[in-house]
């Protein structure tokens, strides 16, 4: 188990080194590249892609690089919040992992701890959610499933939901996911989550 993890880290390091050396993505290198890029790419997928669709849609594709480029471009054109640098990384990762020669059933990549997208600055004192900020964070990350105004959609209605009064369960669900809901721990910062909680709790639930 321990050796396996160490090996995975070594492979990851080797992959990064290979990539940094500017090696062309040969067929044999693609696994290494995928492993090396996976921690950040998988976080990006949760943060930018699963706003609209679950990641199983991605994992079932087997496409050459130019099709992946066209696909990521299309998604950016449609409003996916992907920067130029993120787009390059995603295309590199997707075309290394989900290329036409990849097997139908891919071995999972050991991610270790996913890389946080938001670098937290340590805060002093208790975390206070800012409802005003929460509205925007909700719209960007949660609304796809939980509906405009948190009135529900494919996911539960959160306005007036009893879970808001059980903060431990709320945080547990956001950080680790539940049922079809993905884990947002590597996407949202603590402050983001507190802000969303504050916004949801302040909502008028009389309707």
């Amino acid at each position, binding site marked *: 188990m321990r050796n396996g993890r160490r090996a995975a880290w070594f492979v990851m390091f080797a992959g990064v080194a290979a990539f940094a050396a500017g090696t062309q993505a040969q067929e044999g290198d693609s696994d290494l590249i995928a492993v090396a890029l996976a921690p950040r790419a998988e976080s990006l997928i949760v943060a930018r892609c*699963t*706003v*609209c*669709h*679950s990641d*199983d*849609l991605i994992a*079932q*594709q*087997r*496409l*050459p690089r130019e*099709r992946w480029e*066209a*696909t990521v471009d299309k998604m950016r054109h*449609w*409003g*996916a919040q992907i920067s130029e640098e993120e787009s390059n990384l995603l295309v590199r990762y997707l075309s290394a992992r989900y290329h*036409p020669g990849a097997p139908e059933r891919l071995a999972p990549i050991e991610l270790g701890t996913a890389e946080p997208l938001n670098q937290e600055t340590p805060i002093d004192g208790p975390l206070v959610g800012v409802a005003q900020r929460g509205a925007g964070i909700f719209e960007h990350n949660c*609304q*796809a*499933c*939980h*509906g*405009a105004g948190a*009135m*529900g*959609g*494919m*996911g*539960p*209605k959160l306005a*007036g*939901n*009893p*879970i808001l009064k*059980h903060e431990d*369960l709320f945080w547990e*669900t956001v950080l680790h*996911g*539940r*049922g*079809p809901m993905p884990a947002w721990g590597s996407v949202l910062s603590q402050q983001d989550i507190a802000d969303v909680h504050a916004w949801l709790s302040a909502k008028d639930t009389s309707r």
Partner: protein
Amino acid sequence: MSAGASEPSCSRRTWLAWLLGGVGGAGLLMGGRPAAAQVVEESGSHRDTGPLTIRVGRPFDAETPAREFVSFLTPNHRFFVRSHFGPPPSEQIAEANWRLRIGGLVEQSHELTLRDIKRLEAVTVTAVLQCSGNGRAFYRPRVPGVQWERGAVGNAQWTGVRLRDILRLAGVREHARHVQLQGADRPAVPSVPLFTRSIPLEKALHPDTILAYEMNGRPLPLLHGAPLRVVTPGWMADACTKWLTDITLLAEESEGYYMRTAYRLPLDPVEPGATADNLTKPVEAMVVKSVVAAPAEGAVVPLAPVMIQGMAWSGESRVLAVDVSLDEGKHWQPARLVGEEQPYAWRQWQLVWTPRVPGSVSILCRATDESGAAQPAATPWNPGGFLWNGWDRVTVTVGG
């Protein structure tokens, strides 16, 4: 009250059954608990053993395992689901709030309640609905999109009103040529184009084109478009808009991605792997196709007579013959067409096969319709991966 996330009361399977089976739709229309308030307990292990094989969890895309196609009608909870964005918020389609608006090139715009619609003459059509991308996974080179295999198709009884009766209420103006269909489903991000489609006026005025509020004699389930969806018998299901709210008569085809870019086929054959050129036409009628439902893929069959069963259909033509090959297409023998024959439904077929030697055998089938069209070994490649109708194949092991 809300079931909320603090009351884990419902397994993934019962949740799915609830959403699919019409209880959701019915509960919703009666102002019951919205689907959104249901909790899904994750297990993940039922992914391939439930009523449907899930291709995409969200928005929900799932196909029927081919073994279920031994029945003439596909039960609602096993019927494939294709979602562009998933069901709209429950309040919007609750009967009290939901309206069907008819506008554009009409004499008089109209807004109808479900009750108004149900006052019109009810008609029932048994028809195959099939996702245009059914079989996309079999194209080589691979095509982007949901990797549907054999089960994004089903046969159901649809009850509703004729679209032409609705159009006549409003009065179609002289230069109207296309009927735009818009559902209440919305993308997660507003910059994503809406799923807006149009069909030519002739298809809309065809007496068999209906707006359905029942599926197999029960209220249309939420995931199948409650309270009202379009059914265009003989045509691919991209014309069968769910959660219908707006009908707009136009002089031209609808604008927008889902009409002008997606769901289109090249007019002339294209090089496999090429990108779409400008000369395309919308996906419309279904092509002749057949599927082996039994034995199931991977089954072990005895060295004794085996009943091979399946179904076959064609868009606007009759199925004339289904042939089966057990030697990779070198020799074909006719299957017997059985059961009901209705214009837009599928036809069931069967063939008794007596294997002679143990080992692995592929069962192939191909259908031929009245127009003379027959299934090819593999469908010519197209950039969207639409209308796959290559020979169907099931591989079984004959036991000793």
